């Protein structure tokens, strides 16, 4: 026998109370001088023995009440031998149910989550009388349906029946920790954690920590495993636009990555792409995907209209439907405006710092420039103060000596709203000004400008860009030798870029886009606020390098601009459960937006208001629990539709189970039960040596009976005789 609250056994000392009271009462004697002693004496002689016996009986009964009460509060548990079918004491239990999206896998009929629901109902049915249950769902977050143990098991049953699987990933540790916390707060009954999960390996990454919590000797733990091995499971693990800028009417390339999480090689995998849930616009076949590998396929589509669109890449449905398609949101543009700022006022236009850049961004004849989707405007630094930067998708500072304080503040506000800044140095660039203001004070630049390397007129000495290993998305196309090479470019003169950690809250981590062959940074980037900054180490024209003369210049500049637009569109794509934060047109401030998950009824949409946050008009939305496309209908005239998408984490699609040996190692402290469709948990989780029989209820009843007996006997004994 053990005690759940052994310290309360000290309560037995309370048996001294009736004895002390008895002695105290005997001390409080009233003396009476009496005449009729003969009758009293005769009466006492006849009754004394009986009275003494009654006194002893009452005293014993009162002591017994205190002993039983102390025992009941100490909650003794009788542990029988293994397999003994003891009557179980009441439990304080936590039903911890995995609702990550892998639980949506079905075997052709019921899903793993359906099985988990059935298992939970069986557990609830098998709980002893007087048990209380908390109900937690866990994925990468824990949602408490019944946060504290409730005696209303019918409520728990109803909540279990109504439960839905989420589109999140699994984190068993987090769930078990919260379940343990719940039990910490509720010490009553045999404490029991029922963990119902599909036992995915990805959810048990912190196995040792989980095992430690489950092996807590004061808490009984049962792991109920549901689901079976899945032979075929393909996942659309990535979808990205490879075209630099999605423009209206132009073919845009999308790469769809499909990963085979099945147990056998996938062959002839059909992959489709569609826009705005329309029929597929392109389809391709991946011949073979080995087990555990991912393969990409490029598919094309066109956007008929400018504005927000969703693009969905999909494969044929299998037993885990959620990962069979992936949706991203983006903007198709028919007008990309770029502001070019330069201090150059050379008579020779080709010597102007922006000459090559302007032509690279609008590589069409002057007659066609107005119809081309990228439009540039060139201004002097002085004009920067009065120009509304919000009219431009990107701002380029090319060989600008310095800018005014007002311009710096304007750039900060522009970046904070999601703008893009591209900086090229040149002969006129005042490095000290850039370093002091743009790099250190505001933290715009990912690096300070160090010493200048090389001489522009000594073209026999030059720096070259790295020849391979392009990790950054902007330059990744040159990993393919057929796309040309960056390494052929000669840089005669360049600033040494010294990465600068951000000194402001808005400044993100500096990243290198591409390096020189000597591994020093050539182009760097940094997120700043909601915007993005790209810093080149050399000039935008041929003053310091021959890059504008190289074939790579045009695609590089286009990809740099596309990267900035991508960063802006990236905010349209959030992981499941994350908050969407969209910078809106300032004219929409104060307007309401109804947000719905595409496919759901419009009436079930959520209402949000566009409001100013730190000077930026924002639409915020955090109910992105379901993966897939969403629409925000802003109440403008006519209504404006913004599309965005929530992305599931493909790691959850890996249904590989935690090795059985690992799970078996939890025994005997933890019960691990495999639940099948026809399985019954009675006798598996409810009849076990570790589960003692609690008798506090019996003891409490005995206390009650003894107290009643004491009252009745006291009444009878004290009746005059």
């Amino acid at each position, binding site marked *: 026998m053990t005690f759940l609250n052994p310290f309360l056994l000290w309560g037995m000392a309370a048996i001294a109370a009736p004895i002390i009271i008895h002695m105290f009462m005997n001390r409080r004697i009233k003396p009476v001088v009496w005449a009729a002693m003969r*009758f009293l004496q*005769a009466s006492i002689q006849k009754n004394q023995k009986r009275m003494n016996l009654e006194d002893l009986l009452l005293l014993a009964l009162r002591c017994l009440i205190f002993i039983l009460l102390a025992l009941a509060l100490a909650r003794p548990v009788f542990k029988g031998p293994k397999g003994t079918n003891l009557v179980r004491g009441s439990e304080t239990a936590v039903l911890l149910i995995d609702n990550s999206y892998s639980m949506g896998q079905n075997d052709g009929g019921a899903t793993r989550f359906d099985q988990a629901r059935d298992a939970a109902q069986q557990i609830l049915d098998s709980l002893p009388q007087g048990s209380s249950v908390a109900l937690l769902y866990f994925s990468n977050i824990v949602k408490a349906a019944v946060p504290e143990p409730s005696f209303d098991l019918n409520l728990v049953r109803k909540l279990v029946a109504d439960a839905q699987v989420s589109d999140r990933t699994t984190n068993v540790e987090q769930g078990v920790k919260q379940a343990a916390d719940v039990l910490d707060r509720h010490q009553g009954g045999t404490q029991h954690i029922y963990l119902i999960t599909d036992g995915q390996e990805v959810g048990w990454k912190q196995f040792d920590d989980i095992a430690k919590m489950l092996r807590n000797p004061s808490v009984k733990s049962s792991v109920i495993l549901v689901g079976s091995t899945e032979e075929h499971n393909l996942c659309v693990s990535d979808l990205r636009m490879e075209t630099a800028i999605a423009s209206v009417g132009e073919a845009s390339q999308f790469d769809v990555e499909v990963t085979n999480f099945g147990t056998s090689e996938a062959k002839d995998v059909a992959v489709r792409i569609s826009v705005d849930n329309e029929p597929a616009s392109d389809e391709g076949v991946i011949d073979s995907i080995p087990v555990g590998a991912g393969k990409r396929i490029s598919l094309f589509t066109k956007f008929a209209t400018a504005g927000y669109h969703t693009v969905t890449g999909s494969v044929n449905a299998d037993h885990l439907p959620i990962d069979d398609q992936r949706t991203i949101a983006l903007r198709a543009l028919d007008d990309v405006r770029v502001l070019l700022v330069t201090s150059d006022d050379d008579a020779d236009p080709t010597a102007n710092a922006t000459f090559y850049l302007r032509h690279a961004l609008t590589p069409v004849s002057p007659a066609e420039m107005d119809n081309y989707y990228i439009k540039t405007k060139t201004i002097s630094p002085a004009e920067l103060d009065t120009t509304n930067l919000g009219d431009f998708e990107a701002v380029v500072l090319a060989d600008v000596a310095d800018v005014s304080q007002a311009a710096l503040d304007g750039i900060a506000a522009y970046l904070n709203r999601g703008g893009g800044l591209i900086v090229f140095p040149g002969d006129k660039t005042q490095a000290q000004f850039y370093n002091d203001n743009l790099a250190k004070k505001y933290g715009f630049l990912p690096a300070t400008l160090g010493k200048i390397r090389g001489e522009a007129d000594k073209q026999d000495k030059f720096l070259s860009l790295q020849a391979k290993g392009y990790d950054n998305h902007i330059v990744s196309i040159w990993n393919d030798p057929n796309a040309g090479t960056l390494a052929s470019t000669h840089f005669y003169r360049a600033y040494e870029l010294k990465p600068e950690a951000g000194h402001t809250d808005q400044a993100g981590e500096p990243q290198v886009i591409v390096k020189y062959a000597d591994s020093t940074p050539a182009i760097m980037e940094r997120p700043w606020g909601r915007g993005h900054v790209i810093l080149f180490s050399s000039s935008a024209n041929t003053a310091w390098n021959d890059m504008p003369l190289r074939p790579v210049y045009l695609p590089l500049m286009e990809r740099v601009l596309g990267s900035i637009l991508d960063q802006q569109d990236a905010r349209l794509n959030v992981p499941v459960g994350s908050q969407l934060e969209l910078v809106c047109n300032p004219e929409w401030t104060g307007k309401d937006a109804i947000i719905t998950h595409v496919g759901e009824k419009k009436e079930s949409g959520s209402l949000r208001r566009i409001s100013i946050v730190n000077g930026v008009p924002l639409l915020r939305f955090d109910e992105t629990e379901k993966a897939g496309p969403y629409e925000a209908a802003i109440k403008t005239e006519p209504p404006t539709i913004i599309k965005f998408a929530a992305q599931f984490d493909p790691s959850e699609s890996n249904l590989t189970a935690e090795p059985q040996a690992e799970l078996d190692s939890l025994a005997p402290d933890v019960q691990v039960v495999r639940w099948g469709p026809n399985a019954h948990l009675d006798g598996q989780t409810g009849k076990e040596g570790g589960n003692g029989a609690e008798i506090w209820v019996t003891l409490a009843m005995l206390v009650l009976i003894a107290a009643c007996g004491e009252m009745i006997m006291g009444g009878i004994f004290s009746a005059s005789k």
Partner: protein
Amino acid sequence: MASESKFLDPVAIQRAEVLGLQARQIVEGYMAGEHKSPYRGFAIEFAQHREYVPGDDTRHLDWKVLGRSDRYYIKQYEQETNYVAHLILDGSESMKYGSGSMTKFDYARTIAATLAYLILQQRDAASLAIFDDKVRSYYQRTDNLSAIHNIISLLANFEPEQSTSISTVLHDLARQIKRKGIVILISDLFDDVDNVLKGIQHLRFSGSEVIIFHVLDPFELTFPFKGTVEFRGLEGGPKLMTRPADLRKSYLKELNDFITKLRTGCERNGCNYVQVNTATPWAEVLSSYLATRQHRYG
């Protein structure tokens, strides 16, 4: 000297005055509206005639009235001193008990003083004996009303000190009483009931009418104590610690058995048994006495 100085004690005198005044007030209050001498007898002074009824002594026939009117009338005379009342007062320690301000002895001696005053006022004779295990104080027979002061003084200044032996005293008194009269025993009678009854029987055998005022305190009659109580006997004996509430029924049964036996014994011996609760007015006691007096002497 000791007794003389006692009578000169101002406290003793004051006690006696209070007791005497109390007795007088009781009697006068009770007798208010009554005729001076309601008791008729056969003494010297003629009082009235009444018609002869069979059983009357023919010696008292008024022959003159018979000769004149041929009617039988009996002559009646006012009586001066018809009988002797022997007041026997229990002065044992058990009489010292009183749940209120008045002890049983206080109550008993008030009765004794009252009766003495009434008896002497009505020209009967009275004697007084105060006893415990023997007669401690005695006032010899007197029919002089002025002697009442001495009697009251004796009563007022007696303090119970000894334990009781009623039967011994009753036997002694039975032997000493020469003239038949009324023996008035005022006591709680806390003694062996059989011996008490034997003593009473002896008194009756000597030809006296016996009135027994059985004086009991209301607490003795109800035993209302609560909690744990240590009872200490007034006449010695071991201390008894108990919970009286648990014993009430049993105690009252013992007491009632005692009273019943006493009452039955008294009735069997032709005695008038009057149970007196010290919480009841003295007047009721006088009624009991006068009823007995009426019954005995008409």
